[in-house]
């Protein structure tokens, strides 16, 4: 009797997760399979009538695309510099918003507001602010005696501007940290107080370890996001100037839609997927050493 119940339970389990299974097959496996299939062909478009299997040729010739290396390096820049900066920014903001002062709810709303701005509108606003001639930023800086800088149009400034933009719209990550901070048990701090620990020490020996799962989560989400970043670069500066903000996914988009080399775009996507999987795997492995889970001890 017990056994039959268990069998039945397995069936029920599948029924409960059925929506996901359907979605997974339809909107994931099928498109993904299509991508893999085409990456071994020379099809210019999906559904093209004429194509041939070319084996690994696309993967080998990937590097012939003049923008390939540059866009890969740009994306690595965002991953290597953007992820830590944005994550640290989120954490600092969460600590600020965790202050127990009057009116903090209002501050939270204002800090979160940028996250709710549609990306196109964000780009409009940032163009207004960073506009080298009529923007408020340069006007403010000139009061401090600084020369006009072409932030969005400059080869060396565009990437930092995009990272800054990510901090500006980082509200969701801030919320995750805020929730984690609220979950740190009060009694730990009380104990530390009795020991006479300094604020800094409290932060590093209690807060940080306790919220480390959230940090890992945010870092992984941020890493994936930065690997895939595209819309910001497209809308802000069309990836320019001189491909300074041309990200890897932007180049995939270009391969498919502008160069009309769909199969090449698919190979590049699979390359990126492998890269993301590898980096995430390494992050997870490393994290075992640093991330503290309650209940583990």
């Amino acid at each position, binding site marked *: 009797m017990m056994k039959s119940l268990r069998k039945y339970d*397995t069936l*029920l*389990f*599948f029924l*409960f*997760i059925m*929506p*996901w299974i359907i*979605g997974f097959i339809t909107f*994931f496996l*099928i*498109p993904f399979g299509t*991508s893999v299939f*085409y990456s071994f062909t020379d099809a210019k478009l*999906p559904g093209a009538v004429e194509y041939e299997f070319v084996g690994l040729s696309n993967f080998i010739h990937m590097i012939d695309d003049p923008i390939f290396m540059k866009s890969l390096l740009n994306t690595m820049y965002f991953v290597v510099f953007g992820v830590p900066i944005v994550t640290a920014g989120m954490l600092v903001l969460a600590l600020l918003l965790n*202050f127990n*002062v009057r009116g903090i*709810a209002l501050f*939270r*709303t*204002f*800090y*979160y*507001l*940028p996250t*709710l*701005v*549609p*990306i*196109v*509108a964000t780009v*409009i*606003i*940032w163009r*207004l602010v960073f506009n080298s*001639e*009529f923007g*408020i930023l340069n006007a403010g800086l000139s009061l401090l005696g600084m020369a006009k800088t072409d932030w969005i149009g400059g080869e060396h400034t565009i990437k930092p501007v995009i990272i800054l933009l990510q901090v500006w719209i980082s509200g969701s990550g801030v919320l*995750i940290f*805020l*929730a984690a901070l609220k*979950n740190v048990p009060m009694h730990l701090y009380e104990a530390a*107080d009795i020991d006479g620990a300094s604020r800094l020490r409290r932060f590093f020996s209690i807060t940080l370890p*306790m919220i480390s*799962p959230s940090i890992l989560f945010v870092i992984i*989400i941020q890493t*994936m996001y930065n690997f895939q970043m*595209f819309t910001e670069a497209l809308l802000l500066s069309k990836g320019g100037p001189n491909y300074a903000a041309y990200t890897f*996914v932007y180049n*995939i*988009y270009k391969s498919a839609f502008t160069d009309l080399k*769909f199969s090449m775009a*698919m190979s590049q*996507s699979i390359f990126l*997927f492998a890269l*993301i999987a590898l980096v*995430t795997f390494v992050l997870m492995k490393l994290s075992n050493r640093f991330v503290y*889970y*309650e*209940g583990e001890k």
Partner: protein
Amino acid sequence: MNGGQKMSLSGTALKYFLLCATLIVFAGPLVWMLSTMMKTKMETYKIPPSLFPEQLTFEAFDRLFTVQPLMWKWIQNSFTISIFVALGAVISSSIVAYGFSRFATKYRDKLFPIVLLTLMIPPSIMMIPSYVLFAKLHWIDTWLPLIVPAWLGGAYYIFLFRQFFLTIPQELDEATYLDGGNRWTVYAKVIMPLSKPIIVTTIIFAFVNSWLDFLGPFLYIKNNEMFTLSVGLQLLIGQTSQDFPALAAGAFISIIPIGLLYFFAQRYIVEGVVLTGSKG
């Protein structure tokens, strides 16, 4: 006195100072947007720029709606789509997450990593193949490609729901079984009523994400009248790139509805996101 939160007056002042300094960075651009939209077109070309409009005018809105009479329609569209997406995300993801958190089958631990794996796939890989799929289903130029996937369980929301469900004690389930309840009653009568924070969080996240989605509607919707606000704004930039006040007005309009929604619901969000406390 209370958990060692030694509050001195200077400490509070410092906190306010830090908060306000950061506020300039976060709210500053929005203030600049408000200021720009109330200027005349000529004033936006002034050097040095004036912080606040010399004479307040709302003509930018007139021009905005003349250039783009579909603005309201787009807002309605975005609302309709986002509501359906949010509903779908809550219903489907919570059911799936219930499966992944309460059934002790061996398949659970095999399948759940796959759920997380799907988070890792670049949407760009899916972009064109999905387009082909939707075209074959005759879904292009409808809202279905934007809505239907949400009804089939989003990996991110499944993860959030599952994390939350794991914090609800199993004893409650067992008590329900003793009272003659079954799996579904546990889900519907026990788990869900206790999950208000994560439900609200998911509604808001899903709503916001759908509201902000650019690439989806950009690819799948061609008819201007079916556009969402995100894509519509992009069209607007193409149409009136020199008119900064009108563009700022467009950006302003796109923030208002969702800003209000967030303001009233923000309390739940923080409660809802529970990521600590259990090993994935």
